């Protein structure tokens, strides 16, 4: 340490040049420096946020009064010690490791942390730690700015629990009310006198309105808690819209409004959506349109295409939306005219919920409005194309196919262009759920993944897909502003991440990584195809060969064929008895063509006939040979092959 450790510096720590950074307004010139220092000291000492300064080793040098107030420690008790005295045990070692690696690498760390006060009680802080460098560019100090958010968290939790309980407690009596009224107006309890029937109908309609309100509140709570889940599937759009219209027709009739559909698609078009949630959006837009239409009005629902999107437009001929509301129409609890609300009914949540849903479906919602003439709401969803159906793709053994998962559309578009230029076929997903859907439908050779995405982050996506054996070895290339943090959390190679690329993206590195992942032709590694259905063996060989080879895995003969047709391999390991046949069926394919002979190693639990042995480099029997021995043999084979490789 070149920096002298001061036990209790009299002021804040500067960047080593004596420059306190941003000047304070009104104070200029060298003579004012002392004034500035005094003023700054006052600011930090009177700040409500707690402030802490450590040296480069994390030893506390200085704390402000707010720190003492929040933690219960005096300055004397903490200076010279490490912030770990506040450790609560609520975060694991990996959390702290990641934090330290971030700040040691010179980056700012920001996050929430549960800490322990001197009196043993726990509190939650939102914290930003900034490294400070000296003249030589070495990190000399760390400054932490912390805000106690315990109370905010507690209130948030209470609020969410309250909404959830109230909603549930409302739905239970509503079941009886709506049920009784439904049976009465349905004539189940006998024919009602006309006036009584009308009153029962009013009560029924209003109980249904209350149910919608409760459901909206529950949806908002789900959205806020990040718990709204989506089950995405490809659907043809027209039947979905027609169904929504059918369901809402009677609501339209209540308002004397007719729903008319205009299909301008000129054929079928599909979108990938959660059909219930999609219908919820259309229902909301239809009910708004009906509410704001003049009596005997017409609401037109049109279907069309726009720039690769399918557009559903719902147009009313109402009063239109006043200009002053245009900027906030999708905000929660916004009513265009609150005096009108009682007449129209509604929570003011519908459009906010609709926007969230449409965005989660990968689309956009917008509107146009002409005062006095009406409003049109547009829902644009990416058109789902049949070409991404797995069945059709099997024919295409051409370029490796890469799935991009990136929520920022412009970044996704740039990655897409670069990969296409690099000779890859690509598909884009804008969130984890779209990525999972595409992975289920289509075979990919690699996944280029952003880490920070809404709803489900990249790390949790990698963890989830790795649980599925199919994707156990799908190469993943992380592209993220938080690539380093992600690597710490995932623990490097454990989850088979091929490369971690920080943003802004170095595209030549990205292309190299994708090539390495798909062709295995970079960095001198050989490419091995392992045809085996025992995941234990695959795990072992893949792990033991990872420093010299890119191992592709096929668990069936069929998959083996696909792999061999798509890529070239330097060596093939074959199991004989597989679910759909024998690994030997692949031999003719390996012997076909005039290229280099691919050495084949058989690793099987069954005896192999003499005539099948002539074409293989080696045969090992499970039970007699361990996976370790197999790997050792393969390593030596690769050496032999590469030594004679010049002749090919």
């Amino acid at each position, binding site marked *: 340490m070149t920096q002298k450790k001061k036990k209790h510096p009299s002021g804040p720590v500067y960047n080593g040049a004596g420059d306190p950074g941003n000047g304070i307004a009104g104070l200029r010139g060298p003579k004012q420096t002392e004034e500035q220092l005094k003023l700054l000291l006052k600011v930090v000492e009177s700040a409500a946020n707690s402030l802490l300064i450590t040296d480069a080793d994390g030893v506390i040098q200085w704390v402000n009064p707010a720190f003492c107030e929040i933690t219960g420690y005096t300055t004397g008790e903490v200076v010279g010690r490490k912030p770990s005295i506040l450790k609560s045990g609520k975060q694991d070692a990996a959390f702290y490791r990641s934090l330290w690696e971030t700040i040691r690498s010179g980056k700012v760390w920001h996050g929430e942390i549960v800490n322990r006060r001197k009196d043993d009680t726990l509190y939650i802080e939102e914290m930003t730690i900034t490294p400070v460098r000296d003249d030589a560019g070495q990190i000399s100090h760390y400054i932490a700015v912390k805000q106690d958010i315990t109370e905010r968290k507690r209130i948030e939790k209470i609020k969410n629990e309250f909404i959830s309980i109230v909603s549930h407690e409302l739905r239970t009596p509503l079941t009886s009310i709506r049920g009784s009224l439904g049976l009465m107006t349905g004539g*189940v309890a006998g024919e009602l006198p006309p006036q009584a029937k009308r009153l029962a109908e009013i009560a029924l309609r209003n*109980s249904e309105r209350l*149910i919608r309100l409760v459901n909206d509140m529950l949806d908002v709570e789900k959205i806020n808690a990040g718990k709204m*889940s989506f089950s995405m599937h490809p659907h043809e759009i027209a039947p979905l819209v027609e169904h929504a219209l059918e369901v809402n027709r009677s609501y339209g009739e209540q308002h004397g409004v007719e729903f008319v559909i205009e299909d301008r698609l000129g054929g079928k078009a599909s979108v990938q959506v959660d059909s219930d949630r999609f219908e919820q959006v259309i229902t909301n837009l239809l009910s708004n349109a009906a509410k704001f239409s003049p009596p005997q009005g017409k609401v037109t629902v049109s279907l069309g295409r726009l720039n690769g999107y399918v557009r559903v437009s719902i147009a009313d001929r109402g009063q239109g939306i006043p200009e002053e509301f245009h900027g906030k129409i999708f905000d929660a609890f916004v009513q265009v005219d609150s005096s009108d609300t009682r007449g129209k009914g509604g929570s003011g949540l519908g459009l906010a919920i609709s926007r969230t849903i449409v965005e989660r479906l990968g689309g956009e919602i917008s509107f146009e409005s002409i005062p006095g003439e009406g409003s049109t709401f547009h829902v644009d969803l990416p058109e789902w194309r049949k070409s991404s159906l797995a069945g059709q793709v099997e024919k295409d053994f051409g370029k490796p196919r890469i799935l991009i998962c990136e929520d920022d559309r412009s970044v996704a578009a740039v990655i897409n262009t670069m990969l296409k230029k690099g000779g890859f076929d690509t598909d884009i997903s804008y969130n984890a759920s779209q990525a999972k859907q595409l992975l289920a439908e289509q075979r990919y050779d690699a996944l280029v993944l952003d880490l920070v995405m809404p709803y489900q982050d990249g790390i949790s996506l990698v963890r989830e897909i790795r649980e599925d054996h199919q994707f156990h070895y799908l190469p993943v290339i992380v592209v993220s502003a938080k690539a380093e943090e992600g690597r710490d959390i995932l623990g490097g190679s454990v989850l088979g991440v091929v490369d971690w690329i920080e943003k802004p993206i170095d595209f030549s590195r990205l292309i190299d990584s994708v090539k390495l992942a798909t062709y295995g032709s970079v960095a001198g590694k050989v490419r091995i195809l392992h045809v085996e259905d025992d995941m234990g063996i695959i795990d072992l060989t893949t792990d033991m060969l990872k420093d010299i080879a890119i191992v592709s895995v096929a668990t069936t003969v069929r998959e083996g064929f696909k792999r061999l047709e798509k890529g070239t391999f330097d060596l093939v390991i074959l199991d004989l008895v597989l679910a759909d046949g024998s690994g030997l069926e692949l031999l003719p394919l390996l012997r076909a063509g005039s290229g280099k002979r691919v050495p084949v190693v058989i690793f099987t639990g069954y005896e192999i006939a003499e005539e099948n042995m002539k074409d293989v480099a080696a045969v090992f029997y499970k039970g007699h040979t361990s996976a370790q021995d197999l790997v050792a043999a393969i390593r030596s084979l690769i050496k032999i092959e590469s030594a004679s490789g010049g002749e090919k």
Partner: protein
Amino acid sequence: MATALTRILLVDDEPDIREVVSLALETIGGFTVEMAKSGREALEMVRQWNPQLILLDVMMPGLDGPGTLGRLKEDPATADIPVVFMTAKAQPQELARFVELGALDVIVKPLDPMTLSERVRSLWEHRND
């Protein structure tokens, strides 16, 4: 397979819901309905009365809906009786979890009494699909 659905056991701790739902099932669907107000009572009724289908509330004090379903599945004599949950909880993950537990389906409250019988009959007819 050709047996028609006639005997339904309705289990709910809310007396009003029991009354409304049973009225709907009896009057509109023409079913014979017996009622239980708790999971325990339901288990007894099942043995005595042998219903063809059980409409089971999820949140009940004591033995709740999923707990009751678990008991029914443990006993080979009752394991095959189709159970349809009724719940005011509408989280899709929860609904999926109920089906994983072995429920035939989940009906979300507030339910529509006018279409309930038709829905239950359709679930019964497609129970082996």
